[in-house]
């Protein structure tokens, strides 16, 4: 039980310094490995955000929609309004949060299957709508997004700078989700995920928290999406297919859905390494990811985290919600 244990400030500080140094050291890896680390940070964050929705008992297959909205917002702001990078990041994430609020109020009234399929369709419709808009570059997308100005020692003209940015976002998301999970918010989410009726009978208005979780998840997904769009220098509708939504699911499930931070970190590491070496064989990527998902679901249903858990002889937590 975490409640009784109070971290000493010193321990926390030490951890931050050590992790910071580690992150700093990553910046001196060879280019290819820096690239892998960037993708790792991106998909870890997306996977964590996906898990937040799973915590309230909903299975989203629409994360690509928020990555897409985030990326396009940042691109539009920087290209058409000359908005500074940092502001663009924040505004894009906020836009995603707002869209999530509006959409969430409607679709979170639906449960189980309905939410799942509508989230999928939502992402696809976002993509198709953007592809239809001339202002947003139609099927060509928007390109030539300017490289942001340097920040202190971080140069965005190098991979190193981006690596630090994405690691920072990852740390921010990881910290937030970790704190959420350990605080009352996370508990309330899992109460709702485990049994909405029981939670309601204790006076917890579950719609409020479901929407809240959805919005938080969209915020971080949008933040990553915005940064990723600027990092790649271009956004196009072909980039935000359903496959992106599946990656969120893949990294979280590979890692294990029981742990909100560690699971996606592990899963994403596995995914990005695979991805980096498979991307040159067309089709192999989908095939292997699909095979991996099937393997995990049949042979390692608690994900990679469970391997550690088995050693520690703890009870696996499993899926948070008993559906039928």
């Amino acid at each position, binding site marked *: 039980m975490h409640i009784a244990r109070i971290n000493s400030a010193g321990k926390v500080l030490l951890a931050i310094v050590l992790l910071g140094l580690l992150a700093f050291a990553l910046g001196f890896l060879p280019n290819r490995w820096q690239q892998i680390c960037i993708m790792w940070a991106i998909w870890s964050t997306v996977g964590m955000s996906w898990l937040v929705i799973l915590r309230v008992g909903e299975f989203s297959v629409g994360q690509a929609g928020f990555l897409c909205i985030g990326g396009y917002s940042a691109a539009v702001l920087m290209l058409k309004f000359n908005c500074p990078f940092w502001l663009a990041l924040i505004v894009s994430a906020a836009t995603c949060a707002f869209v999530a609020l509006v959409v969430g109020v409607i679709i979170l009234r639906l449960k189980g299957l309905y939410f799942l399929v509508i989230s999928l369709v939502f992402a696809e419709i976002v993509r198709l709508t953007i592809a239809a808009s001339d202002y947003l570059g139609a099927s060509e997308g928007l390109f030539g997004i300017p490289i942001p100005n340097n920040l202190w020692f971080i140069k965005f003209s190098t991979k190193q700078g981006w690596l630090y940015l994405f690691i920072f976002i990852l740390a921010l998301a990881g910290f937030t989700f970790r704190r959420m999970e350990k605080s009352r918010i996370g508990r309330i989410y899992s109460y709702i995920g485990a049994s909405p009726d029981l939670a309601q009978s204790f006076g917890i208005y579950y719609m409020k928290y479901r929407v809240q979780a959805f919005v938080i998840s969209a915020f971080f997904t949008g933040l990553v999406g915005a940064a990723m769009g600027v990092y790649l220098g271009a956004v196009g509708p072909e980039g935000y297919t359903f496959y992106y939504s599946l990656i969120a699911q893949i990294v979280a499930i590979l890692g294990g859905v029981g742990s909100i931070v560690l699971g996606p970190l592990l899963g994403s590491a596995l995914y990005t390494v695979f991805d980096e070496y498979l991307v040159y064989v067309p089709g192999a990527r*989908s095939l292997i990811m699909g095979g991996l998902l099937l393997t995990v679901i049949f042979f390692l249903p608690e994900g990679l985290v469970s391997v550690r858990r088995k050693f520690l002889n703890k009870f696996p937590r499993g899926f948070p919600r008993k559906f039928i």
Partner: protein
Amino acid sequence: MFDIFIFWITLSLNYVLLATGLTLTVSVMRVVNLAHGNFYMAGAYAFLVFSERAGLPYGLALLLSVLLVGALGMLVEAKLYRRLGGRIEPSIICMSGMLLVLEGLAVLLFGPDIRGLPAMLKGTTTIGGTVVSMERLSVAALALVVIAGLFCFLKYSRLGRSIRATAQDREAASLMGVNVNLISSLSMGIGTAMAVIAGIQITAVYHLSPYVGISALCTSILIITMGGMGSIVGAFIAAFIIGLSDSFGASFIGRYHHLLSFGTVMIILLFKPTGLLGTTVEAKGKG
């Protein structure tokens, strides 16, 4: 104008096939088969192999690809899905896995390029003074025949009745002596076969690539959520509504017709969360 009208009918009838297939699997499996669109795509590729590479006649190639992919669907139900004990999340993950595997295989075997499929009939004919392509007419006719056949099968045959019974109350059906496991596989097989027929016909009118599965999945999801999960009549009505937006929409509303379909579904769900004619899988599942 008349041409678009024919196109609407053609498209909608095939949407009915596609969505009825998904409805059939949903009502028996209680989980949306995310790989449905990719079975559709796989069927179209199978057809391509049988008709172009093996040079078989249209009808035989169609039959073979329906049987082949339908059997694949049954196999997936019996060997993978059933082992997950009906729990929603693992089943969804399993089906996402299948989706990726099928897509990956298609890319590996056929490459990512766009292809065309041979039409059943070529040339044109005139109806009431308007020139209509025979291809579209034949596509519509085949779809109609299959839909009617399926409807009669479900309504009047012993097996069809047991499929409906299993969908309505699995346990009670088993007490009638129905082998519900077999029925589940069979429904999945038939549902997949429907998708294959729709796939062969729609991709012949549009185009085929390994990535067409997702849009087919989205279309069928929009249709079954609008019509109400598990309701075949609902799927029928909704298919024609979505077909309306997809055929007329493109020429009259502009390129945002997808948003229009989505908006319509959202509004319907806002007022009737179970869809137009939904007797909802959800409500049954949760008692």
